[in-house]
């Protein structure tokens, strides 16, 4: 029994090392001069910030960072608001056409996003929204997945709570804003983080949609840098680290909610 336990802990430690070592190497590599990136493995004998100064002077990296931040934050606000609002309606009201809406939603879940890349591009081109942030944000303002998540958590809100609000003279939107949203905070946290990560890391659609360099998001900018500055390993690693840091920080802040939200769909649904 004891040997088994030691073996189990050994496997877990080995797994942890494998998970962390690439990230540790990444952090260390950013502080090495470019010609020394591969000269040492887990040491930094002559630490330098040159990669970071290169990063922000050779390319408008700060602009890319600001673009990604703006897009991710706006997408989170839009998706949380519209998805929770629709989720509330589907969870707590009986209305005509409700079954139809749910049915169409379910039917599209199985359709992969790549199918609609071409027609969506065609549509947005006709709406003159190619190479604009509106073109990225408006079609993505709601998420079927988000509506399902919110509906699932809001079904459990007691009807009596809503009825009490109505007796107090609350409007239906007031109920949503003052009663439903506050009690849905864990789900909002989880869904916000998922949306933030998805938007922040999104590559294919922004790559197709955005043509002007100053509108690029971090993934597109970094992909282009890989082509242009192939040998500038230090700078590429610094760019990667700066690009992933916001997500890591946000995750550490919202960890609990995230895990709960992630598994809610799989375990209960």
């Amino acid at each position, binding site marked *: 029994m004891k040997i088994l336990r030691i073996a189990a802990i050994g496997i877990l430690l080995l797994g942890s090392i494998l998970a962390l070592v690439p990230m540790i190497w990444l952090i260390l590599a950013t502080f090495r001069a470019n010609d020394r*990136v591969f000269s040492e493995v887990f040491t930094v004998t002559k630490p330098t910030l040159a990669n970071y100064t290169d990063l922000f002077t050779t390319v408008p990296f700060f602009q890319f960072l600001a673009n990604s931040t703006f897009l991710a934050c706006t997408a989170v606000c839009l998706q949380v608001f519209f998805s929770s609002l629709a989720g509330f309606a589907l969870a707590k009201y009986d*209305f005509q056409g409700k079954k139809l809406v749910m049915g169409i939603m379910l039917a599209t879940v199985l359709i992969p996003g790549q199918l609609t890349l071409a027609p969506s591009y065609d549509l947005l081109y006709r709406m003159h929204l190619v190479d604009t942030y509106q073109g990225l944000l408006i079609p993505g303002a709601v998420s079927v997945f988000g509506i399902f998540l919110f509906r699932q958590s809001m079904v459990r809100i007691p009807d009596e709570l809503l009825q009490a609000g109505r007796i107090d003279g609350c409007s239906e939107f007031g109920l949503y804003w003052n009663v439903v949203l506050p009690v849905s905070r864990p789900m909002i946290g989880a869904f916000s983080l998922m949306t933030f990560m998805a938007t922040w890391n999104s590559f294919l659609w922004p790559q197709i949609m955005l043509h002007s360099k100053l509108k690029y998001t971090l993934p597109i900018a970094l992909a282009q840098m890989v082509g242009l500055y192939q040998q500038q390993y230090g700078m590429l690693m610094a760019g990667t680290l700066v690009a992933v840091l916001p997500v890591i920080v946000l995750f550490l802040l919202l960890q609990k909610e995230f895990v709960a939200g992630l598994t809610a769909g799989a375990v209960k649904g």
Partner: protein
Amino acid sequence: MTPRRSYRVGGGAAPYIFVAPFVLLFLVFSVYPIVQSFRLAFYATSGPQDWSPVGLRNFAFLLQDPDFHKAVTNTVTYTIATVLLQLPLSLGLALLLSQKWLKGQNLFRLIFFSPHLLGQVFVGVLFAVLFQPKYGLVNHAYAAITMNPANITTKWLGDPATVMPALVLTSLWMYVGFNMIYFLAALQGVDQELHEAALVDGAGTLARFRAVTLPAIWPVCQFVLVTSTMGSLQLFELPYLLLGNTSGPDNAGLTIVMYLYQNGFASGDLGYASAVGWTLAVGMLVISLAQLRMSGGVGKE
């Protein structure tokens, strides 16, 4: 659980107003493009203004294009390899982490999950450097494990034969901890009394796993199986960035979605892109239904 006297009300126009933004956006930006993609698949286009009907020729070309065959072979190989390696590893780690005597579960869980936070693009850029042939981190480990110093210059991403292993390794690094989270959540819901009853009956560890744990977590196993298969079939960013914005030597890293991107968007033929999209969608639907059917049968045993 539902109270006999329901307070649920129609709410007048309110629910319609609440779902209206969704329904509107959904019709315009999801339903319409799906319908339109079906039409587009039968056209050759160069730019949005110039459509010419080609009947089934997009599909005919697709089915005989050696590049598409290569893309399908690569994508399917990758999917089978990652699913076969990833799911047992994820489940194994989750089983270890759910042992009651273990301390520091939360820390381990956080560490195993953390690679997934980076996203495919950034993981691709990072691992392209880690797989660097001259003294990259992977080659340091490879030379040490094989005890052959010559391996320090292995060209993982430069040789068609090693592109796929490198890709699968990278994907394992990124997704094993992610899928572990699902198994961990499922294992927490396993009935402990049933476990103890089986223990009293003298059932061994393996027997208890098969009789108690596996049936209880089966729905989640199915969920993870289907979602990771679907995710793998849509692979694009990871190999694209890993191989420096290319499909790799001898197209060794070409995937179906990469093929769609290169042949549809780079050349401006949205019609062809739609034909590839439909082929992928139908393939995915067939595979996921087959998986659910087969795994459903096993689950009932």
